[in-house]
């Protein structure tokens, strides 16, 4: 199939989604105009788009700042989660000691730490935000990965035993590759969490050149088009981060059922 034909084929399957998106925008615009809805309740899409064009530099600075914080927190939290999960899979006492607390922590709204983080790291330190994101990401990733590491078939463990493979070899050659689909599904959730964590933390102060502060400040000044433009940008960054994880997933685990036919 030619490149062009392939493009058209894909476009064809995307048509319903594109239709709903464009239709939604038209309905939104129409309702705002027809009922003369005020900008502080809901600005029209065209107004938001115009603001996007005029405020591009400020919005991008804030967006990139927040995105970098979220990404740094995601990487840090993810890395710590992987190391902890490997230790928990390898040593029973780590598992028995740490896992109940991790599961408990995972059921609490950890985001409430956001206002506290300022007093730990200082209002202007980027580490406060990174810390909040990392801790938010840590628990779901770790718990999912431990589940993946421990869910190998008994017969696969016996197979490794029959080769006289040691515990560490079994962990690396069997348990870890087996758990990678669990890791990626956790990372996809964590990608969204990381932006939520970063922005909510920014609501409580810190640099003005961040989306959270930008939104609260503009909303406070009744500049709702700007606030909405920032909200749209935050969504775009969220979608981008999620898709980055999906792209990496496709490259790393092409063998998995969830990826095979994608």
């Amino acid at each position: 199939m030619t490149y062009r034909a392939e493009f058209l084929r894909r476009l064809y399957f995307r048509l319903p989604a594109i239709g709903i998106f464009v239709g939604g925008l038209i309905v939104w615009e129409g309702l705002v105009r027809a009922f003369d809805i005020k900008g502080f309740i809901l600005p029209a899409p065209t107004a938001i788009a115009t603001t996007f064009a005029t405020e591009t530099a400020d919005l991008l600075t804030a967006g990139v700042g927040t995105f970098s914080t979220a990404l740094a927190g995601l990487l840090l939290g993810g890395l710590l989660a992987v190391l902890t999960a490997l230790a928990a899979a390898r040593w029973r006492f780590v598992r028995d000691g740490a896992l109940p607390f991790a599961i408990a922590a995972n059921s609490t709204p950890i985001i409430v730490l956001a206002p506290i983080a300022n007093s730990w790291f200082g209002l202007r330190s980027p580490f406060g935000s990174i810390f909040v994101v990392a801790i938010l990401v840590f628990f779901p990733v770790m718990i999912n990965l431990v589940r993946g590491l421990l869910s190998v078939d008994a017969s696969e463990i016996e197979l490794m035993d029959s080769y006289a493979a040691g515990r560490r070899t079994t962990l690396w050659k069997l348990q870890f590759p087996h758990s990678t689909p669990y890791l990626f599904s956790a990372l996809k959730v964590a990608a969204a969490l990381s932006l939520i964590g970063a922005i909510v933390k920014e609501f409580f102060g810190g640099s003005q050149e961040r989306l959270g502060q930008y939104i609260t400040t503009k909303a406070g000044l009744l500049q709702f088009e700007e606030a909405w433009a920032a909200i749209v940008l935050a969504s775009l960054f969220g979608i981008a981060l999620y898709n980055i994880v999906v792209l990496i997933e496709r490259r790393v685990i092409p063998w998995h059922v969830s990826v095979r036919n994608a």
Partner: protein
Amino acid sequence: MSALSLRGVEKVFNPGSDQEVRAVHGVDLSVERGEFISVIGPSGCGKSTLLRLIGDLTPPSSGTVLVNGKTPAKARLDRDYGMVFQSATLLEWRRVQANVELPLEIMGMDAAERSRQAAAMLELVQLDRFANHYPWQLSGGMQQRVAIARALVFKPSILLMDEPFGALDEMTRERMQSELLRIRAETGTTVVFVTHSIPEAVFLSTRVVIMSPRPGTITEVVDIDLPEPRSDETREDQHFFELLTGVREGLRAVEDS
């Protein structure tokens, strides 16, 4: 020295509890190098447990198991066993070639050498054209052939097989049996093979061991004196049918008792 020697082997699961199960009782068996032994019996008779006792996947409650004169634990650490289970248990993230290389990788063999040996093994099971496929791209019979290649690639002295063809259709099954015999003729490996198919046991084996229901014990050992090499004609041989009848009567006797 026997390849395998079992003396008074017992296995009791959950001893002392109300879920106590006497799975294997008083088993004596001696297997010479190069033999093909099939273990057959009603389901739940402990034939799989017997295989697991030999392979050091579970320890006996009493009695002794010697493999090439060693304890099963020592034999396992010496990599004397190749194992094939009912499901192929291929690692789904590894391509066929990498699956066959797995045991060599664990043994620390260098990449070039293990690639060469795995390729040779894949040729032996006639899957060299599928080296770069993922397991899910293969049929059940092909997956099981990969599992056999993987079990034999490090040249273990004993091959332990637990109903390896149980999930295959009859035609594939018969083809796999012939193939297994061909591979064994080339490698000279001793085989202990658990099955519940009488024709399979008779076609493959030098001796068929019949076990009684729980607690599983050996009630009869039938010598299979069919000429080698065995082929599709063997399956239509008069003597093949006589042996089938012999094994079937042996099984019926234990089930009625």
